[in-house]
């Protein structure tokens, strides 16, 4: 069992309540941060920790904090991104449902570090019941002097407000989230200016993912240097992985980023192997937008080295033979799954979620969906595969926000690694919908549990 920093106490009975959370050592980081450290020292600790944004982009959190502008007399804001919408990702939900005070604690420390007196949690609209959980936690924290005016006599005032979205994947993009928080459509803004200079209501703003902010708590408690010792290379600390698809034990796992992909899939402690005695066909390791990998390239890199569950190893080989850590949404496909159909559902998702601002994304996602549907339904031609490839290339890099890339990558990777399956669909039109193409790149797992 690896190190657990976030979910260690998540299953203590009653941990959702302030009383139990506090008894288990909660809110110590607020005391330490507000009474012994100053804002700059907190930012320094987070920098030292090497913590990278857990929402998907993996940008160093401490550096992001240090960019915030501090013009005289202008309020600054911290915004927590709880819009979790990337297919395959449900880790933030798990954290907020089970141990909400951890997020509130991290938010107070981060708000103090950034000088945010009014901090907002923007949560996806569908997580309606979690709003109640968070608002209860906020009320409890306030009643116990950790929120409100003059927290712990430090002179720092802070309130946290929870705002519900209303069903839009795009609002997970930080500038779209800010637009939505201002009561507008979720259209991403052109950057620069970055939110750190002009964000919410044109004020300096930092937007951080739920898991990133929760990780601030152990960083302050143990110190940035100690935190950085966990993990490997630039993948420091622990990461929440939400595993789903055709595995025996779907769920949320906290890993320390030193375990192999094979161990993660087959060990009983984690996914517990492929369900129903089937074999592993492919996996999307970091949320639906990252490249899908066939089993052989998932378990080992192109160089034949073991692939590990961390930022560097998962992206080893670039997009040609690697993928990304992304948001930690780990989607496993067994031998019976059709890559064309899976790619079609993802293309449909991105078409549905495109905000419509940029033509390459608005039009391209629609075209990709239509062509994939055609191929899947046994009406495709061989030239459609090249057309798909062409369209995704014209979307990538040509849009204001990364949704275009997110829509293009799954299609590109599916064709790159499973072109034979696409061809099979157009050559065997009468059988296309039977969807049992089988395994293209099968790799026998060699994982042997320790002991």
């Amino acid at each position, binding site marked *: 069992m690896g190190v657990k920093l976030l979910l260690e106490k998540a299953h203590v009975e009653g941990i959702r309540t302030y009383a139990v959370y506090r008894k288990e050592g909660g809110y110590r980081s607020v005391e330490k941060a507000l009474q012994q450290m100053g804002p700059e020292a907190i930012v320094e600790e987070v920098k030292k920790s090497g913590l990278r944004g857990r929402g998907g982009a993996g940008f160093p959190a401490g550096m992001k904090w240090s960019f915030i502008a501090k013009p005289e007399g202008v309020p600054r804001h911290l915004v927590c991104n709880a819009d979790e919408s990337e297919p395959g990702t449900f880790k933030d939900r798990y954290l907020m449902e089970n141990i909400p005070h951890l997020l509130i604690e991290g938010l107070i420390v981060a708000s103090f570090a950034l000088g945010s007196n009014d901090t907002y949690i923007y949560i996806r609209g569908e997580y309606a019941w979690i709003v109640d959980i968070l608002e209860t936690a906020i009320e409890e924290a306030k009643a116990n002097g950790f929120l409100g005016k003059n927290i712990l006599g430090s002179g720092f005032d802070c309130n946290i407000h929870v705002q519900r979205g209303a069903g*839009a*994947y795009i609002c997970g993009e930080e500038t779209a989230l800010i637009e939505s*928080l201002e009561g507008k*459509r979720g259209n991403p803004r052109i950057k620069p200016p970055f939110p750190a200079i002009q964000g919410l209501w044109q004020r300096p703003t930092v937007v951080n993912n739920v898991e990133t902010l929760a990780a601030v708590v152990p960083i302050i408690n143990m110190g940035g240097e100690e935190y950085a010792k966990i993990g490997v290379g630039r993948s420091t600390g622990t990461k929440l992985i939400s595993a*789903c698809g*055709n595995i025996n034990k779907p*769920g949320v796992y906290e890993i320390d980023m030193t375990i192999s992909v094979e161990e993660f899939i087959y060990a009983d402690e984690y996914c517990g192997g492929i369900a129903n005695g089937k074999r592993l066909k492919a996996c999307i390791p970091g949320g*639906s937008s990252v490249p899908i990998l066939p089993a052989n390239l998932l378990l080992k890199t192109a160089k034949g080295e073991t692939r590990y569950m961390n930022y560097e190893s998962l992206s080893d080989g670039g997009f040609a033979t690697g993928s990304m850590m992304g948001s930690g949404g780990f989607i496993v496909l067994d031998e019976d799954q059709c890559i064309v159909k899976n790619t079609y559902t993802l293309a449909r998702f991105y078409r549905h979620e495109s905000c419509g601002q940029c033509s390459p994304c608005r039009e391209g996602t629609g075209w990709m969906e239509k062509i994939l549907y055609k191929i899947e339904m046994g009406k495709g031609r061989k030239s459609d595969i090249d057309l798909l490839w062409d369209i995704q290339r014209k979307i990538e890099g040509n849009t204001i926000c990364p949704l275009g890339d997110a829509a293009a990558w799954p299609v590109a990777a599916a064709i790159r690694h499973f072109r034979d399956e696409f061809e099979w669909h157009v050559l065997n039109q009468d059988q296309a919908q039977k969807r049992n193409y089988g395994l293209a790149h099968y790799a026998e797992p060699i994982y042997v549990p320790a002991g």
Partner: protein
Amino acid sequence: MSQFSETQMAEFKRLVSRYPEGKQKSALLPVLHLAQNSFGGWLSEKTLDYVAELLNITPIEVYEVATFYSMYNLKPVGKYMFEVCQTGPCMISGSDNIIQYIQDKLGIKPGETTPDGLFTLKTVECLGACGYAPMMQLGKTYREHLTKDKVDAIIAECKSIAAE
């Protein structure tokens, strides 16, 4: 025309109070949720105009938001809305069969409402319950690990509540 009751108005004021002076438009999304819950599960043009008036913004500012986000219903819906996820992770876990089963059972297609006004079936994109697939949203909560038996039980549960 429907207007907020006293309690709903108190909630409206609480929502607006969370933003700085003059930034009341920020409350638009939560206020639309409140309006939808208060006025029969959907937003009519009159309701949108009412929200615009309350927030002191132009009606177009409300329309453009109401039409952008998928959770706002711009047409009447059934008392119980089954919002079944159909994106990749749910699909590979068998959501197709669940959607088909609900269609057969209720005699409606996605986007339709039963003649008695009780059920609406809607297919939706990823709701963040991939590890507990197949799933649907029903009101404020999720129903997860769906099977045909569970769907039967949910339908029976809704019918019995409605009959009370």
